């Protein structure tokens, strides 16, 4: 199968869906400028014109409610934010309106609204351009929350999100935009609410979200050479959460680490750990541990940024502790370094 990047996958999903259904439109700050939301909105203006792809004033709150109003009137809006951090300006509409409108109508309306937002990271993005906060959205009944990891998921899940008749918050990690992978050319939806086993293994399960899957896979690769067999499971859709594959995996391996791309306290990692601890109670050989951001705002300077974010090495060390392995010599391993890909500024 041909390989494309995550960003191209998003772009392809939108274009193919917009060709299929003229009720889909794309809007948000910067969706038509030359940067095109890190390339993910390439050619959309050219192909579909400015009625179906347009910028807005800096008014996140009203623009979200506008999307809701359009959605209940038969349109299928895709609202895009360059950062998740800007989405909190719309928190009122999200929690008090978007999430409840169907319920409050006794099921009479549908809300096919997609909100895409990018999780920033690195090179001084700092505290206001790096939040993910997916647990916050996932906490609110009525919203669906999706975090794609692979290019194939980016396309397949975005197609499903667009076709879904519910509000879907779709959070894309900035660094994943560069990743390449096999992606079908045809528009092939991947069902929401199905976790994905990124790698099978027997000794321990890592449940990871978004970018942390990249780190988990790296950890798995490194430890595979030492004979440790790691299963990496990506929940992908975190609300509503279908945990069957996750529970099966942990029941099989008996050990679990949750690596969430967010703060730990009251995060989605807590939800995973709570469920797994409860449902795998009899099969767990060690407690479920959690890995996540340092419990602080994200600092700007690189050395503190390095401390703030967990990585493959942290995962490896945690696994070693858990399985009582010797400390692996990592001096010859090459880990992901954003020096290579992401120099900023944005």
């Amino acid at each position, binding site marked *: 199968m041909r390989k494309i990047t995550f960003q191209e996958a998003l772009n392809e999903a939108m274009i193919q869906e917009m060709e299929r259904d003229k009720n889909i439109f794309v809007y948000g700050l910067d969706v038509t400028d030359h940067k095109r939301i890190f390339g993910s909105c390439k050619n959309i203006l050219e192909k579909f014109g400015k009625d179906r792809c347009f910028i807005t004033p800096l008014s996140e709150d009203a623009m979200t409610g506008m999307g809701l109003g359009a959605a209940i009137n038969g349109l299928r809006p895709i609202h895009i934010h360059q950062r998740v951090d800007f989405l909190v300006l719309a928190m009122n509409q999200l929690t008090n309106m978007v999430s409840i409108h*169907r319920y409050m109508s006794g099921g009479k309306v549908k809300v096919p609204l997609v909100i895409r937002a990018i999780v920033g990271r690195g090179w001084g993005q700092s505290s206001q351009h790096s939040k993910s906060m997916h647990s916050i959205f996932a906490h609110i009944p009525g919203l669906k929350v999706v975090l794609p990891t692979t290019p194939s998921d980016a396309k397949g899940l975005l197609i499903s999100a667009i076709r879904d008749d519910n509000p879907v918050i779709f959070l894309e990690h900035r660094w994943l935009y560069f990743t390449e992978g096999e992606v079908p050319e045809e528009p092939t939806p991947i069902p929401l609410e199905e976790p994905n086993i990124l790698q099978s293994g027997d000794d321990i399960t890592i449940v990871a979200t978004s970018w942390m899957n990249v780190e988990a896979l790296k950890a798995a690769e490194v430890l595979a050479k030492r004979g440790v067999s790691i299963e990496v499971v990506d929940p992908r859709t975190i609300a509503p959460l279908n945990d069957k594959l996750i529970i099966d995996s942990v029941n099989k391996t008996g050990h679990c680490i949750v690596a969430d791309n967010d703060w730990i306290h009251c995060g989605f990692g807590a939800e995973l750990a709570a469920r797994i601890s409860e449902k795998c109670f009899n099969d767990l050989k060690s407690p479920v541990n959690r890995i996540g951001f340092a419990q602080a705002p994200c600092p700007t300077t690189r050395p503190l940024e390095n401390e703030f974010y967990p990585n493959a090495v942290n995962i490896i060390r945690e696994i070693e502790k858990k399985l009582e392995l010797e400390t692996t010599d990592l001096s010859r391993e090459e880990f992901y370094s954003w020096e290579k890909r992401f120099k900023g500024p944005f």
Partner: protein
Amino acid sequence: MDKSKLSLELYKKVYLIRKSEETIIKYYMDDDMKTPVHLSVGEEAIAAGVCHATGKDDQIYGTYRNHGIYLARTGETDNFFGELYGKKTGMAKGKAGSMHMFCPECNFLGTSAIVATCIPLGLGGAFAKKYKKEKGLSFVFFGDGALEEGAFWESLNFACLHKLPIIFVCEDNGLAIHSHIKDRQSFKSITDIVSKFGCNVFKEKSTDPEVIHNLTLEAIKKQKENGKPCFMHLKYYRYLEHVGINQDFKFGYRSEDEFKKWLKVDPVNLQRKKLLKIGFSEKEIKKVETEIDKQIDKSVELAEKAPFPDCEEVLTDVYS
């Protein structure tokens, strides 16, 4: 006789609203309607006047203070009382209650108990009309308090920028719960400001439903002419407490004298007197009233008898 038919129709609407609210007041203490009510008593001219000018293709959005516009727009009371009683026969099976009245069949598309939140929603309705090149306007009702929320200004700017088919209807009772407009707003004339965004503006403090009705027709015409959104600033007096069924002059935050002045031009009385003046007999009017009374009584009875939704309903309708 067209003119007098209009007068009668408007009277029916204001009477329906007044009577429905009085019916709520009558039964509220039975504690069967377990839902906070923000009554429309005093506001009937606006609800009837504006809604009567709307057509099938027009849409309506509002706030928790929505009984007036709901009744004026839909004319129906079965689902209305069903919803107030929290029954299966309510338009949302009791899930919504008084603060979220809703009727997609009548393009009555959303009301909300968070101030100003339906303004962006109405914006989206107007946007959809423009996008789909459909006829009709989006009418968004809100109180004077909503003017203080950022969402109002953001919506106003977007509506004017895109020349959306939207009519903003500001129902100004000078109060937000118990606080006076002068303690909340620094500007003297909202219409002066709004017009500078590129909005057609209209203002009125009449309690005459026909005046409001004509003004609305004018606004609709103007919108069609120049494509710009309209903003209607309409004053009225809230007779009762903010939420609940009682008068609250005893708390001293406003004077009963003011109320008495407004009562002299009570919209329902006003319209009734007008009917008499233009030739309707007391008997004719009574007949109309009795019919509405009966409709309401029947609806209340139905609602009381109707079953509650099944318990499983708590988890349905969260997602499609």
